[in-house]
């Protein structure tokens, strides 16, 4: 199972719930307003880097670019993908759990 989070971690509880209810080792993809969670130096960075120890983490490049987030602002250990990469992740990891 792969998990997706499309909400800002500052505005909503979606990322918290995803982290709490996903099994260790299952990947998490951040997209849309969810991509802000991938940036370093915020007051949720520690929480996200802790989660990245238990989950392979991915972030949508097109959504980062739209929001003006440079790649050097992305935390270590989070992989940037495009829509094709999103498709590949879904093919590889089975059912998709969208934390809307």
């Amino acid at each position, binding site marked *: 199972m792969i998990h997706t989070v*499309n909400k800002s971690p500052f505005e909503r509880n979606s990322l918290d719930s995803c982290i709490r209810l996903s099994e260790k080792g299952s990947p998490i993809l951040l997209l*849309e307003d969810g991509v802000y969670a991938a940036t370093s130096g915020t007051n949720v960075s520690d929480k996200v880097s802790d989660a990245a120890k238990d989950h392979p983490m991915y972030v949508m490049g097109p959504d980062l670019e739209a929001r003006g987030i440079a790649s050097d602002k992305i935390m270590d250990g989070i992989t940037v993908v495009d829509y*094709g990469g999103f*498709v590949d992740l879904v093919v590889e990891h089975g059912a998709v759990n*969208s934390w*809307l």
Partner: protein
Amino acid sequence: MKFGIQVNEGPFTHQASDSAYHFVKAAIEKGHEVMRVFFYYDGVNNANKLSAPQADDRNLVKLWGELASEHNVDLVVCIAAALRRGIVEENLADGFRISGLGQLTEVGIAADRLVVFGD
């Protein structure tokens, strides 16, 4: 691989429909089959043919319709959700059809993956 897609929001107000569209396009480009896109909740507004965005903005209603005709994607609008929101045959865009909620369960069973986009 065979994909089913669920879209929960209309065009413009949320990015969900844009993300779904780009996902579907990428899946097709990679040689996968997208069996059906099921429009639920406010997602039914993606089928409003009267939608006329500004000239410098994307037109999702049209883009979905083109995708359907070029790649034989079945675009299904949920009838119960559509009736509430005033989407009927009269204003239904090309490439979409209106049908029952069973079409969502059906594609969930038939597809290898169901991916939900929403708010």
